């Protein structure tokens, strides 16, 4: 019995991500969960825009590539046609929390029975390290070169907190992939979200605090420490909403 082999829901394509990028970990965890729940031939993935744009190359299932920020709307369309299939979006912070804020909030309000995998690495990776809606106060990016100043560039958005205040979402949790123990916790949260979708409980979102070593200007192990020490301090981990087993 192998202790760990590549999940079947992951294609053989080489991931387009930089060395040490947390996207690879998150993608793999989702694929493992889809394997474990037997969701091959039952799933549609919705890719977004940003570094996650190529996720349709990595998930071994049907996939639609959505316009920037619109993945929850695209997922809504798919789910309404195929309510018996599993539909999930894979989105980054620029896509979900900036340009696509309306779409994610309203998908949540509708209690749309989809799962959202939200990768928060506090930066725009694909375009080369610009400020994201989730960039930390003081964090330097190529468009906040003196560090994010709330007076000039506003404040970071807390998506889990925002959505959890609303009726509609069924399960919302923030996790991080900074180390082995937390990676296992992340997998558990992802699995629970998909189980909720299978049970028809409604909208689920897992926010994953993730590293972008390249655009943070750090080596990958240091970037993992940054998640633990800085990201998690500003974006507290935990279950923000859980309607439980009854609904």
């Amino acid at each position, binding site marked *: 019995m*192998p*202790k*760990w*082999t*590549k999940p079947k829901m*992951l294609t053989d394509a*080489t*991931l387009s*991500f*930089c*060395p*040490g*990028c*947390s*996207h*690879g*970990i998150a993608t*793999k965890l989702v694929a493992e969960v889809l394997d474990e729940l037997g969701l091959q031939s039952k799933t549609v993935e919705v890719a977004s825009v940003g570094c996650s744009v190529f996720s349709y190359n990595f998930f071994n299932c049907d996939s639609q590539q959505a316009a920037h920020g619109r993945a929850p709307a695209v997922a809504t369309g798919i789910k309404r046609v195929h309510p018996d299939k599993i539909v999930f979006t894979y989105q980054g912070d620029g896509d979900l929390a900036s340009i696509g804020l309306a779409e994610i909030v309203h998908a949540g309000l509708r209690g749309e029975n989809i799962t959202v995998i939200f990768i928060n690495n506090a930066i725009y990776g694909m375009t080369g390290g610009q400020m994201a809606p989730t960039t930390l106060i003081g964090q330097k990016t190529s468009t906040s070169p003196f560090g994010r100043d709330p007076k000039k560039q506003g404040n970071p958005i807390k998506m889990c907190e925002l959505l959890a205040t609303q009726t509609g979402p069924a399960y919302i949790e923030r996790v991080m*992939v900074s*180390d*082995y123990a937390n*990676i*296992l916790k992340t997998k558990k949260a992802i699995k629970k979200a998909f189980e909720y979708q299978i049970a028809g409980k409604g909208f689920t979102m897992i926010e994953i605090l993730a590293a972008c*070593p390249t655009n943070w200007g750090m*080596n*990958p*192990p240091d970037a*993992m420490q940054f998640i633990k020490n800085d990201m998690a301090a500003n974006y507290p981990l935990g279950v923000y909403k859980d309607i439980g087993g009854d609904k």
Partner: protein
Amino acid sequence: MKVQIDFEKCKGCGLCVTACPKKILKMGAKSNKGGYFVVECIDKEQCIACAACAYICPDSVLEVR
């Protein structure tokens, strides 16, 4: 046979090195076609097949049997 490393797929990020409880993974001196220095297992006998390296590897390079 415990940990196996896909030489060509490794991007040399070093995360597995930090995750290994037995400290038997090290950055190697050999680079692959991508130009990355590939991680090596310096003592397979000591591997306890915990799969921590496999879980943290973003590129699914490590397999643990």
